[in-house]
C-alpha cells in the first residue's frame, strides 16, 4: 500500500487531465455524432481558449471567471462560424471537411503563434489556488482538485441536458431522423449550428479552465486534438458516455502511465485504440454510408 500511496497524486492528476480531455472530446463527438462534422480545428479552439485565459487572468478570482467566460464565448463563436463554413460542403463528405478544418487549424494556429509566441503559456492564478493541498499524507495541486469538481459538475449538467431537456431531445432526434425533426417544426440547420457552437464552447471552456493544467501552445493543440480523436474512437463515434469512460482511461494512461512507464506511455494509447477497433466493429451508421 505504501508503494501505491506515492502514486495517488498521479491518479488524481490523471482524473483532472481525463476530465479536461472529456470536455474537449465531448465537443468533438457531439459535432461528429449530431452535426456529422469532423472538426480537425478542434484543438485550435482549445488553444484559443487557453491563450485567452493567459491574456485575461491577473491573479484575481474575477479575472479567472472572466477568462473562463471569454474563452467559452470565443469557442462558441468559432463553432458557430464553423457551421457556416461547412454548410456548402454538406454533400461532399468528411474528407472535404477534414481538409477544410485542417486548413483553418493551420491558419488559426499560426495567427496564435504570431500573437502570443511559440512557447507554452500559463495563466496567472489566484494565490489560493497555487498552494499544494495536504491530504492523507500526500500533497495535491489545489487547482487540480477544483478543476475535478467543476468539470465533474459540467459533465453531470451536460448529461442532464442531453437526456432530460427539450433541447437535448431535439438534438437526439437529429441523430435519428433529420427530416422528421424538420417536419415537426424545428429548423435542423439551427440545431446543427447550435450543436457546433456548443461543441466549440466546450473546447474553448476546456482551454481556458484547463490552461493551468495544460498550457496553450501549438504542440498542446495538436496533442489535445489527437488524444480527443483517440477518445472519440475508443468511446464509440458520437457516444458521449463512451467518451467519458475513454477520457478517464486516456487521462490515467497519460499521467499515471508517464509516472510508471515513461517510455511506453505514448504508445499505450495507440495500442488501446487499435485493440478497441479490433474487438468491436464500428457502428454501421458511421461506416461511410455504405450498406
Amino acid at each position, binding site marked *: 500500500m505504501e508503494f501505491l500511496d506515492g502514486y495517488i497524486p498521479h491518479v488524481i492528476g490523471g482524473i483532472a487531465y481525463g476530465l479536461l480531455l472529456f470536455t474537449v472530446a465531448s465537443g468533438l463527438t457531439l459535432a461528429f455524432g449530431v452535426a456529422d462534422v469532423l472538426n480537425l480545428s478542434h484543438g485550435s479552439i482549445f488553444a484559443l481558449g487557453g491563450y485567452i485565459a493567459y491574456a485575461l487572468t491577473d491573479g484575481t478570482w474575477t479575472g479567472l471567471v472572466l477568462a473562463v467566460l471569454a474563452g467559452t464565448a470565443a469557442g462558441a463563436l468559432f463553432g458557430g462560424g464553423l457551421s457556416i463554413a461547412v454548410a456548402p460542403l454538406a454533400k461532399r*463528405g468528411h474528407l472535404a471537411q477534414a481538409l477544410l478544418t485542417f486548413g483553418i487549424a493551420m491558419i488559426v494556429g499560426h495567427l496564435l503563434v504570431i500573437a502570443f509566441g511559440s512557447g507554452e503559456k500559463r495563466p496567472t492564478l489566484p494565490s489560493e489556488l497555487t498552494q499544494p493541498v495536504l491530504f492523507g499524507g500526500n500533497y495535491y495541486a489545489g487547482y487540480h482538485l477544483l478543476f475535478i469538481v467543476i468539470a465533474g459538475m459540467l459533465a453531470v449538467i451536460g448529461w442532464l441536458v442531453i437526456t432530460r431537456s427539450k433541447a437535448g431531445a431535439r438534438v437526439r432526434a437529429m441523430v435519428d431522423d433529420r427530416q422528421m425533426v424538420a417536419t415537426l417544426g424545428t429548423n435542423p440547420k439551427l440545431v446543427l449550428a447550435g450543436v457546433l457552437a456548443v461543441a466549440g464552447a466546450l473546447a474553448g471552456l476546456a482551454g481556458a479552465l484547463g490552461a493551468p493544467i495544460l498550457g496553450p501552445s501549438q504542440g498542446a493543440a495538436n496533442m489535445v486534438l489527437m488524444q480527443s*480523436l483517440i477518445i472519440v474512437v475508443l468511446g464509440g463515434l458520437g457516444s458521449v458516455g463512451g467518451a467519458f469512460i475513454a477520457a478517464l482511461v486516456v487521462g490515467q494512461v497519460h499521467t499515471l502511465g508517464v509516472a510508471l512507464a515513461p517510455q511506453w506511455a505514448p504508445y499505450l494509447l495507440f495500442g488501446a485504440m487499435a485493440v478497441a477497433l479490433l474487438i468491436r466493429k464500428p457502428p454501421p451508421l*458511421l461506416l461511410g454510408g455504405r450498406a
Partner: protein
Amino acid sequence: MTDSTRSLTTRLLDARLVGVLIIALLASMPFVVDAYTLSSLSEVLAMGLLAVSVAVMAGNAALPSLGQVAPYAVGMYTTVVLIRSGWTVGPVLLLASAAAAALFCLILGFAVVRTRGVVFLMLTLAIGELAYQVSQRWKSVTGGTDGSGRYDATQMFWGTEPMVKPESIYWYCLAVAVIVVLIVARLVSGTPGKLVRGIRDNEARMRADGHRVGHYLLGLYVGAGVVAGIGGSLMASSQRMVFPSDSNFNISALVLMAVVIGGAASLNGAIVGLGVVMLLRDWSNTAVAEHSPLVLGVLFIVVVYLLPGGFAGAASRIGLKAVP
C-alpha cells in the same frame, strides 16, 4: 457499364500519354535547372511515391489515408540505418526499405482494413502521428529533432561511384519512381485493381460472391505501404540528411490534398498535384518565410471550396459519403 469501361480506357490512354511526356520532361530537367531546384525535384519525386501510395488507396478503395507517412518513415529510416552501417547500394536499400514497410503494414493492416470511412481516416491519422512520435523519441536511430546528420551517398549499383552529384541522384530517383509507378499502374488496371474497386462499389456483393475482402484490402494496404516505403528510401538517399518533420502530419495532409487536387483515381494526377503543392510550399518558404503555414492553410480552404465536382468529382470518388 460500357460508360464506365470507356471512361476507364480513356483515362488509361490519357495517363499513358501524359506519363510519357512527363517522363521526357523530367529526365531533361538536369540540363535546365540549377542544383538546388534539382534537389527539390528529387524530393518531389520521393514524395510523389507517397502521393501515389495515398492515391491508390483513395481512388480504388475509397480509403483516404492520413497515415501513409508511417510506412514512408519506416522506409526512410531503414535506408538511413543501412547506409550508416555500410550498405550503400541502391537495390539493397530499396528492397530492404520496401520489405520493412511491408512488414510494418502487415502488422498494422489487420486493424486498419477492418475500418472504413471516418474511422479509417482517424486510425490512419493516429498511426501517422505515432510514427512521428517514435521518430522524435528514438534518438539513436533518428537523432531526434536535430535530424540524422549527414551520411554517405547511395551507389546506383555494386561497384559504381557514389551518387554525390545532384543530377545523378535525381536520375536515380526518377528511374525508381517511374518503374514503381508503371508497376502500380499495371496492378491497378489488372485483376487486383478490379477486385479492390469491386469492394469499393459493393462490398456486400463481393463478400456474397465469396471474395476475401479483408485479404484483398490487406494486400492493398501492404502494397501501398511498399510504394510509400520506397518513396521514403528515395527521400533518404536524395537528401542525405533526414528529420522527423519529413514525415509528420503536415506532410500527410499536404499529400492527401495534392491527391485531391490531382484527381483521386489518376496516379499521374497525384504526382502533378503534389508537384503543384510542393512548388507552392517552397515558393512561400522563400517569399513569405515564416508565414508559410498561412499560405498553405489558405490553399487548403481555397481547394476545398473551388475544386468540388470540377475535377471529375474527385471528392465524391474518394470522399466518404455523408451520413444521411
